[in-house]
Structure formats: C-alpha cells, structure tokens
C-alpha cells in the first residue's frame, strides 16, 4: 500500500491519478484550495476503495505553511512515500503581457510554490533514503512560444529544477519523476478547440501512475509528444521567431 500526498488534488489529472490509487487501496492525503470540491473528491475516493482519505484545504501560494502540510500528511498517514505535485493555473498570456504583477503571480503559482514544496519534500525523503516525487510540468516548458511563454517559462523552471533534484537524490534512493503532459482535455483547457492531439485525463492519469510505479525520470504523456517537442526544439531560433505557435 502506498501513502500518497496529492498536491492540487482537484486538478483533473491529479483526481484521475488518485482514482487509480484509490482503486488499489492506497492511502491518500489531498491538498487543494476549493473546500467543496476537495470534500467531494475525498468522499468519492473513499468509496472507490482508498484505505483512507484526508483533505487539507489551503492556498498553495501560502509558502510559509508548506512545511506544516508535509508534517501533517506524515503524521496522519504514518508517513508519506509518494508525492504528486499537480497544482497550477493556465496563465492568460495577454493579461501577463500587460502586467508585471500578473506575470509574477503566474510564475509564483506554477513554479515557485512547487519549488518550495519540492525543497521541503526532497530534504525529508533524502533523510529517510526513500520515496518518489512526481511533478506535473508541461511540454510548454520545452521551448518558450509567443502564445504562452509565461506559463511555459514557469514549467521550464520546474523541469530544470527537477532534473537537478533527480541527480542530487539519485544516490539517496529517491526518484524524481518529471511529467510533461501535452494537450489534456480538462476544465483548465476547456476553452481550447480540441483536435486529435488532445488526450483524456483518464488516459493521461493511467500513464502517469505507471511512470510513478516504474520510478521513471522524465515522461511525455502521451508519449508521441516526445517526437513533437523534439521537432519544435530543433527549429533554429532565426526561423522559430517567424512562426506563431
């Protein structure tokens, strides 16, 4: 049985991962901001088979309380062996371009708050020489594009941070899994026109849970995004700047 801490538990991807863990009979500690949805999801996961579910309502931008959340999760479940960090917002690029405040707020939510959590978790897992840390980054972090570079650069920071963290923790038997979803059909992306490249959260969650089971390093979900991003990264900047992606 796993003892999983899910940060951003009301995100569609996190919720579907949690359903898989619940069906396996794992214990879940759920952290999110919206209390009504958090309570609903906690009750749901219990019926779906979770050994125990705990919910913890907080705003993850409140960095000062991050250490306390980890302690609380370890205390009530008698330890934590897996963490999934899945919270985030899809930035409004145009609003960010007009406002420094907005830009920094998005970077704060999508990168800095995760980095704060990761720092705390890394130290605790390193000390006990065990654990798996999974972070939802994004294909958007592979190369900044005009249409969403604020979100993309925050995710790029997460990708680089977890890459370094993975190296550091490798010798301590702690796995760091960087997950790069492509387009996923969730409430966060509801306003986008969908095409064949889009994946359902259930399918994406199944792949994420498998990557966590296998303690993979970096995974694109679905896998074909590896090829798509390889092409996008290979385009020289003098040509790339003329495209609009």
């Amino acid at each position, binding site marked *: 049985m796993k003892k999983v801490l899910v940060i951003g538990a009301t995100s*569609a991807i996190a919720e579907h991962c949690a359903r898989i863990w619940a*069906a396996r009979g794992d214990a879940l500690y759920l952290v999110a901001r*919206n209390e*009504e*949805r958090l309570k*609903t*999801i906690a*009750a*749901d996961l219990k*019926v*779906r*088979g979770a050994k125990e579910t705990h919910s913890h309502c907080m705003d993850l931008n409140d960095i000062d309380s991050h250490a306390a959340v980890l302690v609380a999760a370890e205390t009530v479940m008698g330890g934590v062996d897996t963490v999934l960090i899945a919270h985030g*917002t899809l930035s409004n690029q145009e609003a960010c371009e007009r406002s420094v405040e907005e830009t920094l707020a998005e970077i704060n939510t999508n990168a800095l708050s995760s980095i704060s959590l990761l720092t705390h978790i890394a130290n605790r897992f390193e000390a006990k020489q065990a654990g798996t840390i999974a972070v939802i980054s994004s294909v958007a972090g592979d190369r900044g594009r005009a249409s969403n570079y604020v979100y993309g650069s925050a995710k790029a920071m997460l990708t680089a941070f977890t890459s370094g963290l993975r190296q550091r923790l490798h010798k301590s038997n702690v796995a760091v899994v960087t997950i790069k979803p492509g387009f996923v059909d969730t*409430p*966060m992306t*509801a*306003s986008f026109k969908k095409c064949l490249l889009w994946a359902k959260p259930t399918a994406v969650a199944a792949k994420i849970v498998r990557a966590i089971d296998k303690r993979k390093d970096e995974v694109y979900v679905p896998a074909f995004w590896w090829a798509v991003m390889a092409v996008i990264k290979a385009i020289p900047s003098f040509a790339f700047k003329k495209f609009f992606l």
Partner: protein
Amino acid sequence: MTATAQTAITTTISGWGGYPTQKAQVITPLSLSAYKASLQHYPSVIARGMGRSYGDSANAATVIQTTYCDHFIAFDTATGLLTVEAGVTLRDILKVTVKHGWFLPVTPGTSFVTIGGAIASDVHGKNHHVAGTFGQHFVSMTVLLGTGEVATTSPTELPDLFHATCGGIGLTGVILTATIQLIPIKSAYITQKTIKAGSIEEACEAFEANSAATYSVAWIDCLTTGKHLGRSILMVGEHADSGGLNLKIKNPITVPIHMPAALLNSMTTRAFNGAYWAKASNNKTQTVPLLPYFYPLDAVGGWNKLYGKVGFMQYQFVLPKADGVGNMRKILTRIAQSGAGSFLAVLKQFGPANQNLLSFPIEGYTLALDFKMSPSVIDLLHRLDDLVADMGGRVYLTKDAVMREASFKTTYPKWQEFEAVRQKYGAIGRFSSAQSKRLGLA
C-alpha cells in the same frame, strides 16, 4: 478558472446515432453548487451526460454537461445502498460495487450511461418482465428545479415530481444525485442458456415459456421474410453462484474514425445475420462474465462510427401483449420489405407498465433495431410510428429523433399530466431540448 466554477464552450453535439447534430453552448459545472449558477446565466437548458441517447433528447442550444460531477458520495457494502452524483456512469459503479457482491437492479444494454441519463430515460433491461424499470429501484434523488431550489424526491416525497422525473428526459430539472438500492450477487458471472426460435411466433412462445427467468432477450433477424420471418436466438440468464466477484474489466477497442457508410448494407447485414444464426446452437448452457453478457457492444468503443458520418437511427417500439405476436409479424414484414433493416436487432418481452408519466415500457413485446440514416428512413419511421400507434403501442423517446408531435401526444397519453407537473415545479421554459420542442412540450 471562472468565479462560477464552470467552463463554457461552443461546439457541435449530437446523440449516439449522429443524427441530428446541433451547434450548442456546453456548460460543464465543476461542482454541484455550480449548477445553480449555470441556470441563472442561461434561459433554457437541458442536462447531458454521456450523450448515449440516440436522437436529440440531449440536444439544445445550451446544454449542462455532467462530466465533472461524477463522484461517489456513499456506499454501504453491508446493505448495498449507493449514493452518487448524477454524472457517475454505470460502468464506474460496477467497478466499485461488484467486488463487494452488489449489482445494478436494472441495467440497459450499455454501461456507458450516467445515472442521470438512466433515470431520465427510465431505462429498462433484460429483466424488465420481472423487475420493471430503473426508476422502480431507487430510493431517492435530488433535482435542481427551474426555480433554483434543490428538491429531494422519492416515491413518497413529492411523488408527482418523482414520477415525472423518472422517464422525464431531463425536462423537469437537472438531476444532481441519486440513491439506489443495489441487488446482491454471489458471482461476476451469468449462466446463460441459448434457445433458437425459427420464427417470430416461436420466439414469443419461447419468451412465454421462460418468463420465470431473471434475464431474457433475443437477437432477431429483421431481413429474412416468409415462414422464417423474425427468426431469433433467445438468451436467458441467471446470476451464477460461483466463479468469484472479479469483474475483469477491459478497455474497449475503439473504432477510430467514421467508416465508409457503404460498408454496412443489406448484403453485409444479411451475411452477418446468416452467420450469427448458423453459429448459435440450440439449448446450450454456458457461463459468461457479466460485462459481455449485459454490454456486448461496449467491447467496441465508438461502434456508432461503423455507420459512417451520415449516422443512424435507432428505433425501438413496444406493442401491447394482446395481438402482439400477429402485430409484430405485420411490422417485421414491413421492415423486411424495406430492406433497410439493421445489423443488430433485439426483441424482448416487457412486464407491466409503471406509474412514471413518460416511461416507455408497457406489457407486451418490444423490438429495437437500427437503420442507416437516409431521407427515406425518416419516411419509413413515420409510417412505422403510425402502425405502432394504431396497434396501441409507442416508441422509446430515448432513441427517437424524428417522431411527430401528433404521434407523441397520442401514444403518451399522460403528456398533459407531465406538463402540469413541470408547470408546478417551474420547469416550463427553463428545461427544453430539440426533442421536447419537436414533440410540442412547452
């Protein structure tokens, strides 16, 4: 994320048959409390779940999609009492309950429907002759009314609202949650017996002879004419006593794109029917898992795409028991003459009707079949509607896309009572679908 915790997009929607299509604004609330806000923002809506009703029951200019409200609320493994949000599918329920020895009291032919849809269609299953419809097995539900209030209703609490909402195709309000009494099972298997019947008369006799069986349904050949008209393979089933409670759920193989419409024609259908008949053996008993027994087509995801982009019509009618066999022969003859008959057709005996105002089943025989969409099919269905109405029968609203107002109002005589209940609970003008407008409901 918006303040009202919901997402809105504009897209083209259709029922499972792919006809008709409609451009719609799709609102997907993230929590039950967000439904009320959706109602305030849009003048008239219809709730939509998995989009598995075949025609235009869940088509409207604005639809409230229940996808994200698919949570379990409570499940008592000792008593089999289950409470869920309306967006939970039957398949999700089975994944959770079968291993504890509980099964749905009534289930339609696909597990990819939501509880809300199952209630709104008052679905029936292979056990209708002994168990009635889905609406006869649940304890209570909560419904968001046109007034913005949330009402709790059951056969004893606001019974008028209850009997209008079960089978009410979403026109009384938005079903938010439901509490169902599941039935105990000892095994995830069904003991199935196959009986071959050489004609419609033999098939109906076989239903009669097996009326004590828990489950019964027949595949029927709608293309063969003459003496063997209506030849059928009857499958009767009982829950097995052994074999364990492992559901063995598999993900469906998906039909990725629309197939060329010409692929399904009377020749390929005839060949399929002939092979299916020849392969079946009479009086054979076997043990089969629950899922393929109840949901054979669920193994092929998106099977509707086999009909191509033009889509198809599913047509299901019921004829009263008196003269039922002779009348069924008349209609089958008419369908066989048209040559348009379907790949898979299903015959079933119904038990008595219930009190729900727009519920489909009446005691007698029901036939379900599909037709590839074409202008001549609409004409054929209208003529069949008239035949069915003359015989005292009716057509299932969940599968309907073309019925005319007059046919509806003749064959569903409680429609005025239904409208009165809608008036009383503030549903008039607030909940409407392409179908309700076509059928002349306010």
